[in-house]
């Protein structure tokens, strides 16, 4: 033909939008979920508004039990007016504005634990130094474990994270000091998977006497939070966009 061939536009590039995928699975901090009870949901709604106000001013990063955090608090009695503490998060407790997390570290052979309030105005910065989840949600057994498992360098550099979607689970089995422990961690009530029990077989079997296998089937103890979480996520999205 004399005419040039009809213009074929190049094929459109396929865009895989990872951000929207990530938003669907976004992390909801556990202190937003109201506890089970008969209190007026208005109280929790007002508390959530205050929590969101605080989060707009101060960034509280996403973290789980097992992460290594560095917290700088305002201290009127220290030189430079601020105090920095590095430690592993052992537990997260409390709901609403009184949400707390406990950081543990061993400094100069002395174990130190500090319970910080997430929404306290004294906290100036929270940095996540190492991201890793552990096998349990409560690492209180680190108090009875060998001190090497709780020591973290105070001048540790933040470990960079490449993959923005998954948080690695550290399947470390911790070795304990000889008994007696502060709590009988081998009992099934605590359901700990992160300890390497070096106890004899008959003791492990004797501990199973205290197991309550009917608890997981108890209907009255069920608390399904999926619908509540959906509502709260929607609320958060709306408030943060304002």
């Amino acid at each position, binding site marked *: 033909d004399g005419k040039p061939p009809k213009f074929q536009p190049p094929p459109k590039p396929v865009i895989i939008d990872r951000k929207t995928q990530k938003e669907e699975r976004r992390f909801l901090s556990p202190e937003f979920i109201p506890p089970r009870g008969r209190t007026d949901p208005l109280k929790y709604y007002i508390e959530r508004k205050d929590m969101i106000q605080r989060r707009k001013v101060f960034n509280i990063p996403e973290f789980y039990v097992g992460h290594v955090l560095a917290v700088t608090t305002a201290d009127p*009695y*220290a030189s430079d007016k601020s105090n920095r503490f590095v430690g592993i998060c052992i537990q997260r407790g409390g709901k609403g504005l009184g949400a707390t997390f406990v950081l543990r570290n061993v400094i100069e052979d002395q174990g*130190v634990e500090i*319970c910080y*309030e997430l929404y*306290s105005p004294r906290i100036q910065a929270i940095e996540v130094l190492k991201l890793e989840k552990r096998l349990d949600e409560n690492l209180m057994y680190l*108090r009875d474990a060998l001190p090497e498992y709780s020591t973290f360098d105070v001048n540790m550099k933040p470990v960079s994270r490449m993959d923005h979607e998954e948080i690695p689970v550290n399947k470390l089995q911790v070795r304990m000091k000889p008994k007696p422990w502060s709590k009988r961690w081998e009992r099934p009530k605590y359901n700990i998977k992160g300890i390497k029990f070096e106890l004899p077989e008959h003791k492990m079997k004797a501990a199973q006497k205290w197991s309550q296998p009917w608890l997981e089937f108890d209907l009255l103890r069920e608390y399904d939070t999926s619908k509540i979480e959906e509502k709260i996520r929607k609320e958060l999205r709306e408030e943060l966009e304002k």
Partner: protein
Amino acid sequence: SITGACRAVQKLTRVRVVDNSTLGNTPYHRPPKCIHVYNKTGVGKVGDKILLAIKGEKKKALIVGHKMPGPTMTPRFDSNNVVLIEDNGNPIGTRIKTPIPCILRRREGEFSKVLAIARNFV
């Protein structure tokens, strides 16, 4: 067998002397024990003075950390720590390696000499 460590410091609690004084660090067949707490309640918290029985002698001491959880944002130690002191408040040792809570700084007037020999603050 022995009872577990006491959470706050009261009469007959075994304590751990934390400074580098000879009296606190020489081994003895009995651990240092508290015999009196200079407080309205008999329970000693951080910053309280107590009377210790060490090596057959009575010595005053200052509590610098206990196992009992205190107010939030304050550190909780894994052992009951104590610094040996004279009657006028002068510490006997010359260095304190273990971390000391920053709350003691509030009472700088009484504890200035102890805070001067401390190295780490938590």
